[in-house]
């Protein structure tokens, strides 16, 4: 410990506080400073949302303002029409399907695997656990090329299998997070159930799983929004526009060489952030706790 133990020193008698150290003054200073900084941070997002309501001529002339002079909601239907005869309804349906099924797969698998690591003692447990943590550091690039070759041979390009199948084993992040959570559940409960004649599977289903709700909600939120934003893997496997996720569609839609209707691009960009923000605002507490207790990256 680099800090010195100061407790033995005598208490210093302080002179009366000068005006600039008074609580009210400091409070105003604090809120002024932090609120300004927060506003600067939020400005680009607010600007995006505001711009999505600006009429075409205002987008380049009234740039710095967040609010449009004349609101122009027409950008939304214009953008929703999509491209190549495929509307954003299709892209949202694809994204919703993938994010929901993908989340379901990886979170439920993660819970099962986490229970195995946290509560069952078996040969090689420590080794596999260490390997699992190591996989967190693997660059996707070393796995993705051979995966692609195999999935291509299987004729699975332009299907969701290559995106969903690797999720059957859960995600190392969520497994780790749920393990941490299970460790905080008292073992007495398991023991009581075991004395009552329950086996490991019964303990998992009836004792542990019901208590895992907060951890599972946290994992599900993260999984949903990572899947929603996923780009590289869908980019490689989904090449036909009717399978595009919102992320892929936005990229094509905003291609500077093709599209010039910036109002529509801003509208669809802002709209794509909506699900993520709704989840963020409704489950903020879970997210913050998930990140702070396990060091998950967001």
């Amino acid at each position: 410990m680099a800090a010195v133990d100061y407790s033995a020193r005598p208490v210093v008698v302080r002179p009366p506080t000068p005006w600039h150290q008074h609580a009210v003054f400091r409070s105003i200073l604090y809120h002024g400073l932090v609120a300004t900084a927060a506003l600067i941070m939020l400005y680009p997002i607010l600007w995006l949302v505001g711009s999505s309501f600006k009429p075409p001529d205002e987008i380049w002339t009234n740039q710095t303002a967040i609010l449009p002079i004349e609101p122009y909601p027409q950008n939304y239907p214009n953008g929703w029409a999509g491209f190549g005869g495929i509307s954003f309804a299709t892209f949202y349906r694809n994204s919703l399907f993938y994010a929901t099924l993908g989340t379901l797969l990886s979170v439920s698998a993660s819970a099962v695997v986490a229970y195995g690591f946290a509560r069952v003692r078996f040969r090689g447990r420590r080794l596999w656990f260490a390997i699992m943590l190591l996989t967190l550091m693997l660059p996707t690039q070393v796995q993705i090329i051979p995966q692609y070759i195999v999935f291509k041979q299987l004729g699975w390009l332009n299907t969701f299998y290559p995106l969903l199948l690797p999720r059957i084993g859960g995600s190392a992040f969520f497994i780790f997070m749920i393990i941490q959570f299970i460790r905080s559940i008292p073992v007495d409960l398991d023991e009581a159930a075991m004395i009552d004649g329950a086996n490991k599977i019964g303990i998992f289903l009836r004792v542990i799983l019901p208590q895992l709700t907060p951890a599972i909600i946290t994992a599900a939120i993260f999984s949903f929004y990572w899947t929603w934003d996923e780009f590289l893997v869908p980019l490689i496997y989904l090449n036909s526009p009717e399978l595009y996720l919102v992320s892929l569609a936005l990229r094509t839609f905003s291609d500077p060489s093709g599209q010039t209707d910036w109002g529509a691009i801003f509208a669809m960009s802002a709209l794509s952030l909506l699900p993520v923000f709704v989840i963020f605002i409704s489950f903020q507490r879970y997210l913050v706790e998930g990140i702070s207790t396990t060091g998950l990256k967001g």
Partner: protein
Amino acid sequence: MAATLTKAKRRKPSNFGQDNLVGYLFIGPWLAAFFLFTLIPIAVSLVLSFTDYNVLSNSGDFIGLDNFQRMFFEDRRYARSVNATLKYVVFAVPLRLVFALGVAMLLNTWRRGVGVYRAAFYAPSIVGGSIAVAVMWREIFGNDGLVNFTLNLLGIEGPNWLGRPETAIWTLIILAAWQFGSPMLIFLAGLKNIPRHLYESAEIDGANAFQRFLRITLPMLTPIIFFNLIMQLISGFMVFTQAFIVTQGKPLDTTLFYALYVYRRAFELNEMGYASAMAWVMLMVIALLTALVFRSSSYWVHYESDEGPA
């Protein structure tokens, strides 16, 4: 009698849960996925890196170390991509961590409204990886974009941010620095764990705010700094989406980040052998760097107890 009963009960946890079959049953899904989608692909990737495999013809010949020779001695773009990645990591990671720690310290208070501020500072990170933000960033730094428009109002003529080799990478570094939410939350949790009495006694002794930061906050936070540094280094080396959308690696390959170049070689030029070799070098570099940071940690990371970080 009652006492011996409870004692007997207490002893149970020692062999509680010893069960190989059930254990492997539970971790089975992960194990299967690990072999199928991680271990075998990595091994195959190593083999591919010694071939000139082309996915279109599904054929390739063993060419020894040619891929590596080409990478290190012949491919000028490869050198530029390494340069761009290093520059990005060297600036983006420390910037992000400094912002994260600074804001976390500002928010480490019980004042009213802190929850709202925390959400506001975290918001850019929640949308961070999305295409929408990348598209927005491209517009903000465009020739007639928000930044230049604002500079114009101040009478300054802004540069062509995305078109000039000196400035393009900075738009991506700023984008990374803007998204400091996750390390901020982790720092915040760490700050809350520092015992208050340390600060109180330091204050009584007359230590000023800067001294308290240097002598208490920083040493107590080193495990968290260590953890954040590792995580941010790894994700810094793997940055892809932002460069893919905002700058497309341009101009003059100054933003051709490593992951982007691997993608181009593998999936645009179909040179999967060469791309595998590049991916393996990336794996080795990340492993080496992580190991170095871990080794260095005994010199600067201070652990109060035996517990690890986070």
